[in-house]
């Protein structure tokens, strides 16, 4: 039997009012004037409008309205060259405005953690109820709202965090234990935003793919968060929480943790479960990561740029048995970075690119495109973090040269033809090769491409339990039963 990736969804949520709660801004603001102080004001002078976020070229690529290669024809900086006539809705999903996302946060809140004022509930109610994804029962969760005075008291006396719509206080999120770090307001906010954005993308997947929620057997969340309590930090299971919110009444699931490589691990786990006949319809979902919002804000301020890390990104994939149409995952061509392997880039890429291809007798040049860490370089370069996709493509090109498939002078050509510009928000797990999966599915289905190798790395050493890094790869290939030319 073969396993296919049948469909996918991609979306962004503009969260300007939450930049203050990204890990880096939150820490820096606390020691530079606190909330409302100088640093927070400086950050908010550089925040983008929703319209600017929608028209930002890499964001239009992410939701499928542009192809990645089209970025090569748009002058830089991209934030000064908006896409004319850019739309909120994309082929793969949408870019959701913050006001509407507050509605999603309330829908995700099963413990009355988030209070919003009656005035704000009134303001967002119309927009939220026009969403095709909510049922009447869901909308009841918005409630009548909590008076502003009560919210202010909760913030001042009970360690709740204020929630804003730009500069206006519109609500709060409370802690759920006085001494449990895993249940403090900031952690619960991270988890809730991941759940809400993950649910948004799962709903989009169901709509786009015409998949019934009740047909889903198993859910794997590859999100970056740590849901749990003091006795089981990071215990999970966000997959079931997201599935519940999306009415997947027949599904169970669990969370996959592998730093930034988690989406590839999760897709391979899903494919293996389907191949083994354990489950038929597995959904891999990744919600957005609040901690990474505004991570490189100081460099963006220094270069007088907008704060570009202002969106949560979400992804979802439907993995199922062979339908004779959609591209297959070649389970005989899986790359892994084993514990015993060296951790230099050449060794990692050899494990993830050369070894799996050698296993099935393929040359590097037989692969149409390579998807690697797709970080948008416009976000990372000002911070001195380099152009991650370009670096990885150059290493791959060098491997092809060492294998004698191309001449060393052709490495730049390899980068140009086999690679692509980075277009993903720097949301940790999201850039891990999979932003290209939607584009690849379409191109392979339509016969414009034969295959793509997806390659992602994970920084295990950040957790201080091992100096190891990690990586996974898989080959997506045209379904041999699909005779489209």
């Amino acid at each position: 039997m073969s396993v296919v990736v049948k469909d996918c969804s991609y979306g962004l949520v503009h969260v300007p009012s939450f930049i203050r709660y990204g890990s880096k801004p939150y820490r820096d603001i606390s020691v530079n004037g606190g909330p409302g102080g100088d640093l927070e004001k400086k950050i908010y002078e550089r925040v983008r409008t929703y319209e600017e976020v929608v028209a930002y070229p890499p964001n239009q690529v992410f939701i499928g309205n542009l192809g990645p290669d089209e970025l090569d024809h748009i002058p830089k900086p991209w934030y000064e060259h908006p896409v004319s006539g850019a739309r909120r809705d994309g082929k793969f999903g949408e870019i959701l405005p913050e006001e509407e996302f507050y509605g999603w946060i309330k829908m995700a809140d099963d413990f009355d953690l988030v209070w919003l004022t009656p005035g704000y509930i009134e303001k967002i109610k119309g927009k939220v109820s026009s969403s095709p994804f909510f049922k009447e029962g869901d909308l009841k969760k918005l409630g009548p709202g909590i008076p502003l005075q009560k919210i202010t008291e909760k913030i001042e006396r009970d360690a709740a965090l204020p929630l804003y719509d730009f500069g206006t206080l519109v609500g709060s999120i409370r802690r759920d234990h006085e001494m449990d770090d895993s249940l403090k307001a900031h952690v619960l906010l991270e988890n809730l935003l991941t759940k809400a954005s993950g649910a948004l993308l799962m709903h989009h997947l169901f709509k786009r793919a015409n998949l019934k929620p009740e047909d889903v057997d198993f859910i794997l969340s590859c999100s970056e968060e740590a849901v749990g309590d003091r006795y089981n930090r990071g215990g999970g299971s966000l997959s079931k929480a997201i599935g519940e919110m999306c009415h997947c009444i027949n599904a169970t699931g669990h969370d996959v943790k592998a730093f930034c490589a988690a989406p590839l691990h999760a897709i391979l786990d899903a494919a293996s479960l389907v191949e083994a006949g354990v489950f038929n319809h597995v959904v891999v979902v990744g919600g957005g990561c609040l901690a990474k919002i505004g991570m490189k804000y100081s460099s963006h301020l220094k270069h007088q740029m907008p704060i570009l890390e202002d969106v949560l990104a979400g992804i979802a994939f439907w993995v199922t048995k062979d339908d004779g149409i959609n591209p297959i995952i070649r389970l005989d061509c899986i790359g892994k970075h084993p514990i015993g392997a060296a951790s230099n880039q050449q060794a990692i890429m050899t494990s993830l690119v050369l070894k799996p291809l050698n296993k099935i007798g393929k040359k590097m040049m037989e692969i149409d495109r390579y998807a690697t860490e797709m970080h948008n370089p416009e976000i990372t370069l000002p911070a001195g973090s380099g152009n991650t996709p370009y670096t990885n493509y150059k290493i791959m090109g060098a491997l092809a040269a060492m294998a004698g498939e191309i001449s060393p002078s052709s490495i730049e050509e390899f980068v140009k033809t086999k690679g692509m510009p980075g277009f993903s928000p720097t949301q940790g797990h999201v850039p891990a090769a999979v932003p290209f999966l939607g584009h690849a599915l379409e191109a392979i289905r339509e016969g414009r491409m034969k295959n793509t190798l997806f390659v992602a790395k994970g920084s295990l050493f950040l957790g201080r339990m091992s100096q190891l890094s990690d990586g996974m790869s898989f080959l997506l290939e045209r379904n041999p039963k699909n005779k489209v030319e």
Partner: protein
Amino acid sequence: MFNGKKAIVIGERDGVPGPAIAQCLSAAGADIAYITTECFV
């Protein structure tokens, strides 16, 4: 080359990892005081 010198090693995920730098410095005589690898993206 690094005899008698102490080294603090900071590697990068998409560049050279800390342990690889440390091994080179160690071979050149350095005393490694601290190794880390960071992710800057």
